[in-house]
């Protein structure tokens, strides 16, 4: 299953700290050897300030109590730097810790800055120090502190690049603290900024979008309303472009979100189109499943792929969230996916058949005969399927799906009225314009 693991593809688009949960998850799943993962972790930590943690991992990796010199030195260095930064930012932090003073701040940034400068001798240098301090805090793993400082920094900051960085930092911190609601808010704010900001080059804008999409996976697959939001975001033209340009692997998440979302059936067609286009660069069981089902109508293979999909989902950090139900451990998303996928298969199957053997169907849907029959009856009852069951022969007989000539004509003429309406409007507008011009 390791070949479908996307960690190595996703990781370059994430913050170092955000990769941790992924590695932890991999460790749990035992896809890779423990040693490999621990090494990866140390490497990851090498550039952060979480030296203590790195030391711990080092110990458990090599089963020793010794810690390399470099790490000890680094620790000292980090501590020293923290002291320094804290001092530099101290005046501002003191000011911010006093709620009475903070309340005096108004919405106008300029006057705030002026006031700070006059009354508290807090200039741009201190504000900059606050930013550095917050960043440092984040790198040390103190996410909540970092989130607070960054929030306050944003109210004071005038530099747009810096404020973007602060937004990213805040989002990362919220994600790591698993405050999904706040994170979603931050995410939306960030998206607005990215879409509206003038980037030096379109390339960097694209880069930012790609990051945003990757980070959003954390939020969307954990927030209750995330599944709708992810479809909305990813299907936006610009983001879809970004996916097709440099993040094909995100198609997996988009595909899953579309499949498990019953209200988003209409996006399916677009999705299949995109998947087909990208099929030569990216392919995993989930996209292949969709391709088998909606392009090749190869039900056997779709069935097979569906089985693989289950495993892929289980092994994916974002998708494979486990839920404890009594003594059972289930992966809710997987179950949901399988259920919906089954429905898809059945629906498509019905579309091209007029008579189906229930036994065969049951086999295909991984159910026993009675279950299958019950399932179908339910579908018919909910008016989702126009069919009847011939229980003597054990078959389902579809109703006629083709539209009558009457409907066809209605269909073809319906367009006409809209079009003539528009045409008439256009003519009137043009006439008015020329008249106005003549007068």
């Amino acid at each position, binding site marked *: 299953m390791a070949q479908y693991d996307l960690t190595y593809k996703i990781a370059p688009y994430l913050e170092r700290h955000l990769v941790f949960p992924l590695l932890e998850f991999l460790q749990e799943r035992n896809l890779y050897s423990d040693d490999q993962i621990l090494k990866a972790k140390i490497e990851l930590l090498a550039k952060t300030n979480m030296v203590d943690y790195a030391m711990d991992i080092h110990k458990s990796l090599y089963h020793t109590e010794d810690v390399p010199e470099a790490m000890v030195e680094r620790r000292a260095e980090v501590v020293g730097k923290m002291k320094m930064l804290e001092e530099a930012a101290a005046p501002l932090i003191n000011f911010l810790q006093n709620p009475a003073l903070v309340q005096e701040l108004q919405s106008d940034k300029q006057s705030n800055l002026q006031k700070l400068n006059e009354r508290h001798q807090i200039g741009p240098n201190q504000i900059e120090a606050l930013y550095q301090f917050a960043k440092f805090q984040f790198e040390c793993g103190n996410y909540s502190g970092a989130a607070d400082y960054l929030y306050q920094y944003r109210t004071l900051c005038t530099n747009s690049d810096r404020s973007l960085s602060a937004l990213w930092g805040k989002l990362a911190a919220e994600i790591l603290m698993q405050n999904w609601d706040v994170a979603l808010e931050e995410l939306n704010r960030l998206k607005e900024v990215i879409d509206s900001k003038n980037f030096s080059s379109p390339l960097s804008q694209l880069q930012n979008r790609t990051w945003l999409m990757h980070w959003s996976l954390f939020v969307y697959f954990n927030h209750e309303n995330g599944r709708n939001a992810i479809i909305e975001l990813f299907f936006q033209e610009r983001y879809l472009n970004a996916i097709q340009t440099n993040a094909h692997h995100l198609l997996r998440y988009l595909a899953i979100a579309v499949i498990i979302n019953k209200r988003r059936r209409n996006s399916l067609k677009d999705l299949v189109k995109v998947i087909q286009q990208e099929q030569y660069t990216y392919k995993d069981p989930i996209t292949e499943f969709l391709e088998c089902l909606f392009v090749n109508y190869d039900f056997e293979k779709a069935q097979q792929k569906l089985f693989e999909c289950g495993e892929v989902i289980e092994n994916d950090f974002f998708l494979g969230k486990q839920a404890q139900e009594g003594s059972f451990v289930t992966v809710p998303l997987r179950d949901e996916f399988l259920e919906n996928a089954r429905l898809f298969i059945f629906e498509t199957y019905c579309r091209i058949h007029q008579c189906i*053997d229930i036994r065969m169907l049951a086999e295909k849907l991984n159910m026993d005969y009675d279950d299958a029959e019950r399932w179908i009856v339910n579908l018919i009852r909910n008016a989702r399927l126009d069919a009847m069951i011939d229980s003597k022969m054990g078959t389902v007989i579809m109703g006629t799906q083709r539209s009558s000539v009457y409907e066809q004509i209605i269909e073809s003429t319906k367009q*006409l009225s809209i079009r003539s309406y528009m045409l008439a409007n256009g003519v009137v507008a043009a006439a008015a314009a020329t008249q106005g011009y003549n007068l």
Partner: protein
Amino acid sequence: MASRFWTQGGDSETEEEESDLEYEVQAGAKEGGQDVGNGSKYLRSDSDSEDSDDQKRVVRSAKDKRFDEMVHTVEQVKNSMKINDWVSIEENYDKLNKQLEKVFRVTESEVVPRVYIKALVMLEDFLAQALANKDAKKKMSPSNAKALNYMKQKLKKNNKQYEVEIEKFRENPESEVEEDKDSEMMDQSETESEAGYSDEEPDKIIGFSDSDAGDEEPEGGDGPWEKQKTRKEKIMDKQFAKDPSEISWEMVDKKVKEIIAARGRKGTDRAEQIEQLTYLLRVAKTPAQKLEVLMHVVSAQFDVNLSLNTHMPINVWKKSVQNVLSMLDILAQYPNIVLEDAMDPEMENESQKGADYDGPIHIWGNIVAFLERIDDEFFKSLQFIDPHTKDYVERLRDEPLFMVLAQNVQDYLERIGDMKAAARVALRRLEHVYYKPQAVYEAMRMQSRSVTTGENIDDGDSELDDEDRQMTKFSSDMKGPPAFVSVLEIVPRQPSFPELSRTLMDQLLSLIYRVGDERTKPRAMLCDIYYHAVSEEFHTARDLLLMSHLQDSVQHMDISTQILFNRAMAQLGLCAFRASLISEAHSCLSELYAGGRVKELLAQGVQQSRYYEKTPEQEKLERRRQMPFHMHINLELLEAVHLVSAMLLEVPNMAASALDPKKKVISKNFRRLIESSEKLAFIGPPENVRDHVMAATRALSRGDAEKAIEVIQSLDVWKLLPKKDHVLKMLKGKIQEEALRTYLFTYSPYYDALSLDQLIKMFTLSESQVHSIVSKMIVAEELHASWDQPTRCIVTHNVEPTRLQALAAQFAEKLTVLMDSNEKAYEAYTGGSLDGPPAGRRKESQDYASVTTGRWQGELSTAQGKQSSYSRYGSTGQRSLFNVGRTSQSRVGGTGGYKDLRSTQGNVRGGTTYSSTFQSTRYQDAYSSVGRTPYQSGSSVRGGQTDASGRMVSLTRSGRF
């Protein structure tokens, strides 16, 4: 012919005796054949041989004759003076001047004959007299007066040159003894006097050479030839007489200037110039001077062939390559020498600075221009050599030689930081590599290696080269002292090709993308696309093409780039075909075949158009653009690929809409072929590619897959494919599938149910394939049927509409047509008047009025496909009728296509290694796009589903235009 002879002569000149002999024979023959009176050339050739000792007597007489002639002319002048006939005086005066030139030539000296001076003095006096006599002047006839005025001016101008002599003459008019102008005169620094002569008397020279060309042309080859010989001997004399160390920088400089001044004049012998310069090269005093002279040598070598329509002699080409290489040696050895394109006149003496001079030395020259010229000549020679001869292969072996040179030049340019020029050179190199598959590249690499292991690069070449080598040996061994400035061979003489051509390509491409200009970048990109297509990377190639927007901008580029674009497209089509992407292959190639001008578009032969004649100029231009044979894309294979893919797409499409009046056409070209083949009364066995495909088409439309496969597989051209078996297998599968589709389209209305097993047997397809194809058709509503799973049957639902229903449907359709034409009219009214010729517009809308919605939709989607892929070839800038029609059509369909076109630009990925610049533009556009349809809208064409929302978009857009 003349030039051919020349170069031959130029080469064999080393073997002096032999050519001398040959020459004498010629001279002798002329002597006999020619009549003495009108023998200026005769005289000249004789006098030329004066230097060779055995013909002294003839020489004398020739010289005397010259003087006699002059004296005769002077007499005539005197006579005319007596009758005051200024017209004839003027004539004779001009004649006199010409004769003077000839005397100079004969005597090889600059001493003016006394006769001449005397005549001048006489004329001057007479003129003064005539001018003084105002009355007589008034009485003169107008023509006479005019001639007088002319004389006045000419004489004034001319006499200035001879002031000294005239003075002398006036002082001492009595000493009329004609001096003998012999040997001392010759030894006297002729450089000086000649330089003076060419500088001061340009008009005279031109006049002279005109007459020369007039009456001496037939023999023109001989005179200078002989002269060159004599010069050569002189040079040798000089060499032996003088210690080379006596030759000073100034002397060389002067001589160079003098030779250069003669450059390009009709009378000058180009081969001789090279010879002289080559000698000077060896006596050059400083490295800078040597470099300077080298520059001139190379330019002179380029001059050897003046015509645009023939190529430079190959051995001269090789020599110039060597010369440029030694330039590079000098430049590498003395990094303080700077080449400059625009030269300050003050800098003229820069080359005087010696090798130990520290500061920068500026030398005129442009090494990139040389390199490009060398490349062009190489290309041209390949164009002109018959590709089926051994010569062609020999010539191709010189390619590594060029590659070395280019590589060195590029290194040099990178060293001095001229990145723009380096990119240009890199492009040149790229254009020698891009069309070579790895195997061919490997062959070139091996060849170049084997050549360089031999001691001489020219090893094993033609006789000319042997001579050439002898000559170099001769010049270095026997011809006296070694050159003053010895230049070590610093730059490598053997090419270093990386093992994989991809590596080389990447090196060059990354350089070009980084620093290239407007022309080099797209060209490099096209080469890259071509290369990817050759090496079976269709998707990469396609993405490169799409992200670079080349299909939009190529129309504005020069013709050779357009040809390159066409070639890349053709190759892309072939690649898609090999990768079994039939509809992609078709959309790549269909445009190429639309006008029936494939040969012209690919520059692989001149095609006669039935509709119009090309002027000779156009034809000449076209010939100059031709690709050398080894770069050709096999046209038969291309045609086969195009027709087969058109067949695979069109046959089921035709079957689907056989009874439908609103047919949509995928390949017009293919339809036309079908029509013409249907008209045939008797159908013979297939002979060419087209016949084969037509035969297969007939079989396929009957649903007879086996026959179709057999016919297609019997084509010879497939053996040109690298992976023939694989492709044939793929073709077989595709034909079977399409046969099934065709069969279902054609015959399903006559069946109530079809058995799956039966179909499997009929088309020898697997069950899952049949199932998949049929299901697809059902879902796309191409086939009104559904599966009956327990009995493994396809049950068709054909419902005959009642009369009323049919009428209603017809009515609805007519309404749609009305609607469409209204919209067209509206469009023409609001937007159309702005951007298109109204006539074409009207025709277009009439056209639309006669068809139905479906047609419109179809048209729209095909237009999308067409536009989005590659909007137009139009390579030659000739606008045929057909072209214009096409333009207007695509404009009308363009409202829908526009959107599509833009959206494809977002279809971008990978390629991060190349071109950050290309990417940036591409992303920008990607943001503004609306829909995302792939550029190969083959699927949408086939499905025939244009969704309503798309149409609304196009509508609202069209309102804005």
